[in-house]
């Protein structure tokens, strides 16, 4: 008898032909990694055989081939029309009874197993030719969330089947030379993780910017995960150190609080026509907190590590936190494809000159791009983008990939490091600055701009075409020297990238940089927070959002900076210099002028050891000591 459905716990990676790549991957994790602690929601998949029979029974095979055979995909109007026609046919077709019965039985079993009548499901597409090792292609096919009851499930399965004929999917197959009729679709039906009441996000088992392999990079935001994948939110970010995790030590290297302005939750479902999901604003109070606790971050990272070890390669993983049972689930895992291709050649870009900053966001890649700014509001403006232009927009969409390819740089108002624009930009090797907030308001259509991702974590859009240097060096050809070559590093956000340059450690890690860039507030003001005027208290409170208290903020930020450097250069030594600000430099920090003396000659004034030993500063120095102690003694 033909098999129309398959349970995840019976599937492995070898079943791509039966249930597509994504479903096979879920099956692989359930059947091999549950014991090890990887938590994947239960479910089943329709088989590719069911898809084939569905097309045959409805007489669609020849009709679809006929439409696609003569199609010129560069003719956008023709592509749109063809896609629409085919999708209409698929949605109007009916599932043959045999398949319907198999789905119905499996559904009853899955719903019964949950012990909850109101249980909802996610229905996702899984194709036999997507997520190939060399094409990560974010958001290739369809996902439907919060699907209820058999009737909705059947409708969702057809939506998933139809998604194989999305315009971009058709165009993609032509570009990649896949025959249309050799790609089959499977629908995965999985119990919903109640992340609408929790949080969700994406994680990579390497640093996506530098390719650094000893860290796990996690993004997180409230609600269902679509917002992060699409890039409609600026998520929280965390780096976790693999060696620390393995050794059972505190392993979080750094945290970055995202704005998390919106979240996707379940729709009201008062009537059948209501949307299954809706997005809404997140309350201010929740936005100023991290969407995951430290222990949740580490628990997620542990699951990621197990998955990476099982597959033996860097992975790109979607996760979800269930707000009802409090558990963390893995909802997707696939090989990471971009950095895995990186080689030994180090490419470096450096701006020779800086100009007026028009917008600032998260840097993707490390290149510099420049050209004429094109403000694009929708796909209908696609033709306005010429080769070499800088694409500026609210956010990108998978349908935009053809224009993104033409751009010399991409700038978006919304999105984090794992959003669609970021993934595609990285894949195409184009610099992108995402999550600028207001780039479309500050960059004028037609203006000449320079987009720099060569300055660490933050990316900048400058006015004008600024000169820059571009050098390449092959690290494979450096012979040994009788002297150690180490590096001076200030900003920890460069650490993973710099660690790829040949070196024997860090000869000078400047704590002042961490204080300046990651803290920005005079330590005395944090120690004496209670005695500050209200205006200052308010300002400081907003800057330390997400941390327990002012002193904790200071120490933890130092810990994050130092730990990131130490992890980046392990096993080489890192020499950390305790703070070496002069009084005028300390005065520049927020509230600094309240505590710092006016000196005629600060360079030979209140600095270094004399400062540490002075009654006025000693307690500030002790905070540095406790940060060093935590990194050395607890994190290892």
């Amino acid at each position: 008898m033909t098999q129309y459905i398959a349970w995840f716990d019976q599937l492995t990676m070898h079943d791509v032909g039966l249930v597509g790549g994504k479903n096979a991957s879920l099956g692989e994790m359930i059947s091999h990694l549950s014991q090890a602690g990887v938590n994947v929601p239960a479910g089943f998949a329709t088989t590719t055989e069911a898809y084939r029979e569905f097309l045959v029974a409805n007489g669609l095979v020849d009709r679809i081939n006929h439409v696609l055979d003569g199609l010129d995909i560069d003719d956008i109007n023709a592509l749109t029309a063809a896609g629409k026609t085919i999708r209409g046919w698929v949605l109007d077709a009916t599932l043959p009874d045999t398949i319907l019965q198999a789905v119905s039985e499996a559904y009853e079993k899955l719903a019964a197993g949950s012990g909850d009548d109101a249980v909802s499901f996610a229905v996702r597409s899984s194709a036999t030719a997507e997520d190939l090792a060399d094409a990560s292609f974010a958001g290739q096919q369809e996902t439907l969330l919060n699907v209820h009851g058999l009737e909705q499930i059947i409708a969702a399965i057809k939506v998933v089947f139809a998604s194989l004929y999305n315009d971009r999917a058709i165009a993609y197959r032509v570009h990649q030379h896949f025959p249309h009729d050799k790609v089959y679709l499977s629908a995965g039906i999985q119990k919903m993780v109640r992340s609408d009441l929790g949080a969700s996000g994406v994680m990579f088992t390497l640093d996506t910017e530098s390719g650094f392999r000893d860290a796990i990079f996690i993004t997180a935001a409230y609600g269902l995960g679509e917002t992060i994948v699409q890039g409609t939110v600026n998520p929280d970010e965390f780096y976790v150190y693999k060696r620390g995790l393995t050794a059972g030590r505190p392993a979080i290297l750094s945290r970055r609080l995202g704005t998390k302005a919106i979240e996707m939750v379940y729709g009201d479902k008062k009537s059948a026509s209501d949307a299954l999901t809706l997005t809404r604003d997140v309350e201010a109070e929740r936005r100023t907190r991290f969407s995951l606790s430290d222990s949740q971050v580490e628990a997620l990272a542990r699951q990621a590590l197990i998955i990476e070890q099982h597959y033996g390669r860097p992975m790109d993983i979607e996760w979800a936190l269930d707000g009802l049972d409090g558990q963390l689930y893995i909802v997707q895992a696939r090989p990471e494809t971009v950095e895995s291709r990186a080689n030994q050649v180090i490419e470096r870009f450096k701006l020779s000159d800086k100009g007026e900053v028009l917008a600032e966001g998260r840097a993707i890649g490390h290149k510099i791009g420049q050209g004429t700014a094109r403000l694009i509001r929708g796909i209908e403006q696609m033709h306005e983008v010429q080769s070499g232009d800088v694409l500026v927009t609210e956010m990108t969409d998978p349908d935009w990939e053809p224009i993104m390819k033409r751009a010399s740089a991409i700038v978006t108002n919304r999105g984090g490091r794992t959003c669609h624009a970021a993934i595609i930009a990285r894949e195409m090797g184009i610099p992108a600055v995402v999550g600028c907030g207001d780039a479309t308001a500050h960059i004028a259509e037609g203006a000449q701009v320079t987009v720099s991702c060569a300055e660490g974590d933050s990316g900048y859009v400058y006015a004008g075409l600024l000169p820059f240097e571009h050098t390449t060096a092959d690290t494979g050809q450096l012979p040994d020297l009788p002297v150690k070559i180490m590096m001076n590093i200030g900003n920890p956000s460069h650490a993973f990238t710099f660690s790829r340059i040949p070196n024997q450690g860090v000869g000078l890690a400047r704590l002042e940089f961490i204080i300046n860039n990651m803290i920005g507030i005079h330590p005395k003001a944090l120690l004496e927070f209670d005695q500050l005027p209200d205006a200052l208290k308010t300002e400081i409170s907003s800057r330390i959002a997400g941390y327990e208290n002012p002193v904790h903020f200071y120490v933890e930020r130092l810990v994050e900076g130092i730990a990131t450097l130490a992890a980046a250069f392990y096993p080489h030594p890192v020499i950390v210099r305790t703070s070496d600000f002069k009084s005028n430099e300390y005065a520049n920090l927020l509230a600094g002028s309240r505590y710092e003396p006016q000196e005629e000659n600060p360079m030979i004034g209140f600095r270094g050891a004399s400062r540490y030993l002075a009654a006025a500063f000693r307690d500030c120095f002790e905070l540095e000591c406790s940060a060093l102690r935590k990194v050395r003694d607890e994190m290892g």
Partner: protein
Amino acid sequence: MIPFCRTLEEAEQVVALLASQGLVRGQNGLRLIMMCEIPSNALLAEEFLQYFDGFSIGSNDMTQLTLGIDRDSSLVSHVFDERNPAVKKLLKMAIDACHKQGKYIGICGQGPSDYPDFAAWLYEQGISSLSLNPDSVMQTWLDLVNLGKQ
């Protein structure tokens, strides 16, 4: 690493302060390095090294303080040069003192990143590490390889 330590008394006290904060030299592999960036540090190198496991040279401050130059004053800044013989003489004292006691001696100042011949001189004096700005690592490395061949 402790910066700008002017006197032996400060050295003793700051090491004691660190120890009182749980950062005890020698414990759990902790090595304490002192910035060598004031002429007093080089002149009393052997004595300072009682308290530390080595020196890291700060060539910028050492040059300003040896030559009495405010680098930010454009009227005199042209005289600033880490390769001035007086500076080199002090640095040699510091390097020799570290060698004598078998301790770490590195440099983390801007000098060797800016001047390959200064990097070469330090290399010849037997400095154990050069800490460079990341963008000059590759070039300095290749320069030193060529120097070794000559």
